[in-house]
């Protein structure tokens, strides 16, 4: 990998976030049995920031709407979705129009599975994308270069998605992201069910991207994997982010962690106390008045059940909890 794909990724000062997500909420209008209309709230008052050269991991359990966060940033939500709040990219408002301009160029997505590749299109056409004849050659050269870097044999480019092995697929998906000289990479659950070696290999790709100046947003349910490479961890729960902590806050029994849920997650890991917390996340159609974690919290009080706690800055991180000052 020499020049083309890593140019223009200059190291930015860490003072200003490249992407700011401010208080976004996302809901879907649905029809239930008998055509009764319901609103399904998937994301509520979520805020976060991504910096160049850093990896931000968004950690939450599977099926909790994390992918939709990625789709919201890219502006590829389905038509029955309602999104409110604001986003900022590089100091400018990130409107839907802007998203359409930037996606695939400045902001790229690494999806989670083979269903995200067109089953009837050969790999190279999908990686190169739709280009006119003038640029086709240079793109083709770039793609071959990237394939070499990720150890993909030349014949892979003539294959169809279903012919790829799991390992090849992951590297192909990563390749799509580095084809363009992007600034933000959003990786949606890139490490499902991998063994130790493959996991480390995949994670190293992201570490490498961050080192080259990308802002990497790693969406995952695997907190251990996230801790290995991330700079910051955002804890996603019931459609919002409860805490954004630095990776080195995760030590000991979690004394440095700000939110009881984060602490519980940390202590549930096998190498720590291996102690799971009781209960489950609230359902998406439940209407919650107070703190989303109220039902399962060990330090709750009366205020917690009445209103959603504000997001507060605390010890270099952020937290949504009443018991932290």
């Amino acid at each position, binding site marked *: 990998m020499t020049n083309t794909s890593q140019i223009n990724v200059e190291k930015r000062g860490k003072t200003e976030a490249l992407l700011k997500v401010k208080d976004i909420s996302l809901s879907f*209008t649905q029809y*239930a*049995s*008998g*055509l009764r209309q319901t609103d399904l709230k998937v994301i509520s008052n979520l805020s976060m920031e991504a910096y160049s050269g850093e990896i931000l991991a968004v950690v939450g359990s599977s099926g909790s709407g994390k992918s939709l966060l990625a789709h919201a940033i890219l502006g590829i939500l389905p038509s029955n979705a*309602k*999104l409110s709040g604001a986003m900022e990219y590089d100091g400018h408002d990130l*409107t839907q129009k802007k998203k359409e301009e930037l996606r695939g160029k400045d902001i790229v997505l690494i999806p989670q599975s083979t269903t995200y590749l067109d089953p009837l299109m050969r790999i190279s056409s999908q990686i190169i994308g739709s280009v006119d004849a003038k640029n086709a050659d240079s793109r083709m050269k770039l793609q071959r270069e990237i394939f070499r870097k990720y150890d993909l044999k030349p014949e892979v480019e003539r294959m169809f998605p279903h012919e790829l092995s799991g390992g090849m697929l992951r590297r192909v998906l990563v390749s799509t992201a580095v084809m363009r000289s992007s600034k933000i990479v959003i990786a949606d659950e890139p490490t499902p069910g991998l063994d130790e070696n493959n996991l480390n290999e995949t994670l190293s790709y992201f570490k490498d991207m961050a080192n080259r100046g990308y802002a990497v947003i790693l969406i995952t349910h695997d907190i251990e994997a996230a801790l290995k490479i991330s700079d910051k961890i955002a804890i996603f729960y019931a459609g919002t982010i409860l805490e954004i902590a630095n990776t080195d806050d995760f030590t000991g029994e979690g004394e440095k962690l700000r939110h009881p849920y984060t602490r519980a997650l940390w202590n549930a890991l096998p190498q720590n106390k291996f102690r799971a917390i009781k209960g489950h996340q609230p359902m998406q159609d439940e209407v919650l008045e107070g703190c989303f974690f109220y039902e399962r919290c060990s330090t709750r009080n009366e205020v917690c059940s009445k209103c959603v706690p504000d997001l507060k800055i605390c010890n270099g991180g952020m937290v949504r909890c009443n018991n932290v000052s």
Partner: protein
Amino acid sequence: MSTTVVTVNRGLFNGFNLRQKTILLISCLSMLLISIVVSSTFIDDSALSTDFGSKNLAPSLEHPFGTDWMGRDMFIRTLGGLGLSIVIGALASSISTVLSVILGLLSSIGKIEDSIVSWLVDLFLSIPHLLLIILISIGLGGGATGVIIAVALTHWTSLTRVVRAEIKQIKTQEYIHISRNFGRSRWWIAKNHILPHLVPQFVLGTIVMFPHAILHEASVTFLGFGLSPHQPAIGIILSESMKYLSAGYWWLAFFPGLSLLIVILAFDLIGENIGKILDPKRAHE
């Protein structure tokens, strides 16, 4: 920010939600169809008596659909034909539904039964539908009975397929296994656990079958099989009108066919909207 407005309360009936609009639409269309059937039974013979004084009249206020070569009012003939078509359609699709219930449940009993049923479906689909109806109605000696039975005997295939697929899905459920472990017979399970789940499918299946049955009945009648020339069937009316096309009596063909189209469309829309209520995923479009 991407805020997509959901277009639920726009359009013709402002202020109603989709559910209310759907139910309203279904009721209006059903009323239309019921009134056609009811009023067709009140037609007395005097209204259809020959009156050569007023033959071959173009549509007017007095005769909205015009009159034919015997001076009969085409509106009343059409109404009678539609009523007959709907009744025949109802008869044929109920028989077909019963057949698909039986065959569907039969296929749930065991592997051999299932392959017999699917083989039967394939056999019936191997000959063009219209030709099969003609063949069966000839075998039955023709006439109105021949056509009704032929139409009834050939429309069960698609519903049977739906029922088979549905049953396959239900059978994977836990309680079926538990029931088997309690020693219930396969037929008992089919009757008590599977049948109740299928009722909505049957209702929808019958309604969806209606337009097909009516269209096939009209087609076969038009070709000259089945109903006798004295009955006021739409197929007969249209087949008669062919003789007068060159003479420029366009209303003889236009209005009866258009009315049949509207009836078919009404059934299609009812079926589709009931489908939406039963399966809300389809409403998102």
